[in-house]
């Protein structure tokens, strides 16, 4: 039979059982998968044991007949669920059937029906597998969406923090600027009336407006000292404020440090003379040229020297020594300034406190020797700005030694 031959051609390699049956359920052809699944044997062409599909199914013959009748009417696919008995693959099958061909005369006898069998169990299993996988993936996607939402929320949070930080930073900078401007204005405003005081005192002392007796001269001197203290306060406060707000910039140039030391010493000489102290300077014979901020080094040295003068009783001395110190390994040599005094010394308990802004030795931390207590903090900050440090050794009653060490700038690591 032609249909059987054509069937054999296409259905043989297919993995699913396929049958060709008559509308009366006689098996006309079977592919190898069907023979194996349903334990069919072919005795001769088109002759099988068992010969009828009815023998294989458990469903009622009426049901089978109805199904085959539907199939015989159309070449569209008709689905049905059939239970097959016994054999190696017992169980329910999803069966799809449709009319295949017919005799040229269109008679019913020529109609045969193509049936494809799919194990229900397999279909269920693959369906369930698919279902599970979809389930799992959905679950994962849910999880992922949740995490994404959280991340978005956190990113938003971070953006808000960043904005807040920016606001705070601007506020802080603005406050710092305002403070600097205020102090700058204060300095200017204080210096103008001070100029009048200093000016008229000097004019009187110079006897421009007439002679001045000894007692008047002494009184003028007292006024002058008071004015000088005021000026020192203004200078120190301003300097400290600039350091504190980080407004100070380093201007690095090549300088001869011997000259810087000389200048600092000259600036402290008047105060030393007044306190009846000797100031000594020990410098190397050769120039000490180095790249650093000369004026700042001079300021730090002046602060150290002033402190030495302040805390040394009359008859004593303050010595400034400059030397070069070899660096370790590949670091260049550093400059070493040492300010040694024969003064009252510093108690070990005060070792760190002396570097605290405004702290001064004496009752309740208030200086009894004048000054604001900013000299050392400023000197230490300068040392830090220039990449160096200040060290101190002292003993009560034996004087103190402050050492400022600075490296050449442009050679700092990190």
């Amino acid at each position, binding site marked *: 039979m032609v249909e059987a031959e054509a069937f054999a051609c296409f259905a043989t390699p297919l993995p699913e059982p396929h049958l060709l049956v008559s509308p009366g359920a006689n098996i006309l052809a079977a592919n190898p998968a069907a023979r194996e699944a349903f334990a069919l044997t072919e005795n001769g062409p088109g002759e099988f044991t068992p010969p009828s599909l009815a023998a294989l199914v458990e469903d009622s013959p009426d049901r089978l007949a109805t199904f085959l009748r539907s199939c015989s009417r159309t070449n569209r696919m008709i689905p049905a669920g059939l239970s097959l008995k016994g054999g190696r693959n017992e169980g329910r099958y999803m069966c799809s059937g449709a009319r295949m061909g017919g005799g040229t005369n269109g008679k019913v006898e020529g109609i045969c029906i193509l049936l494809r069998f799919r194990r229900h169990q397999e279909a269920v299993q693959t369906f369930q597998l698919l279902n599970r996988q979809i389930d799992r993936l959905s679950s994962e996607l849910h999880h992922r969406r949740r995490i994404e939402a959280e991340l978005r929320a956190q990113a938003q949070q971070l953006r808000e923090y960043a904005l807040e930080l920016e606001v705070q930073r601007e506020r802080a900078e603005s406050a710092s600027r305002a403070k600097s401007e205020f102090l700058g204005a204060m300095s200017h405003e204080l*210096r103008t009336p001070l*100029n*009048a005081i200093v000016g*008229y005192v*000097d004019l009187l002392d110079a006897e*421009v407006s007439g002679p001045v007796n000894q007692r008047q001269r002494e009184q003028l001197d007292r006024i002058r000292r008071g004015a000088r203290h005021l000026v020192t306060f203004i200078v120190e406060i301003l300097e400290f404020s600039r350091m504190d707000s980080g407004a100070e910039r380093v201007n690095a140039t090549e300088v001869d440090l011997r000259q810087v030391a000389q200048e600092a010493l000259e600036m402290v000489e008047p105060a030393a003379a007044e306190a009846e102290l000797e100031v000594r300077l020990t410098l190397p014979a050769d120039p000490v040229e180095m790249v650093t901020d000369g*004026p700042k080094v001079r300021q730090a040295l002046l602060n150290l020297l002033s402190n030495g003068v302040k805390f040394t009783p009359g008859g004593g001395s303050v010595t400034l020594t400059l030397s070069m110190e070899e660096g370790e390994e590949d670091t260049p040599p550093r400059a070493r300034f040492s300010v040694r005094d024969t003064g009252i010394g510093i108690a070990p308990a005060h070792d760190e406190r002396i570097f605290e802004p405004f702290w001064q030795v004496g009752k309740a931390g208030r200086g009894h020797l004048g000054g604001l207590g900013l000299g050392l903090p400023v000197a230490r900050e300068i040392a830090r700005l220039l990449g160096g440090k200040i060290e101190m050794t002292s003993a009560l009653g034996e004087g103190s030694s402050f050492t400022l060490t600075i490296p050449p700038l442009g050679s700092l690591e990190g």
Partner: protein
Amino acid sequence: MKCILLVEDNFDSREIYRQVLEHAGFRVCAVECGGDAVRIARERHPDLILMDIGLPRMDGWEATTLLKADESTRSIPVVAITALTAPEDRRRAATIGFEGYLEKPIAPRKVLLEVEGRIGKP
């Protein structure tokens, strides 16, 4: 007799410097704003100008810039006497062409020393 042009708007400062300079023998011409300073400098060619910075209408920066730009007044030494003490101010003065920079408060005898140091005795 050498002539000093004193530019200072504060009464006390003006009086103090004028007295110490006249007492030393200099002739002093005192004005209170930058505009007058430029005009007098062009008219009278003083030997030295003492310039305050904080002045009404035209300040010391502007006045000195004009003086240094003008061929006829460029060579007159200008020394600042000011309560401005920030490093930026000193740098600005150097850039504009001030020959000297004195910080207030300053004893008038020191001002006299600075003047005589630059242009000699009256």
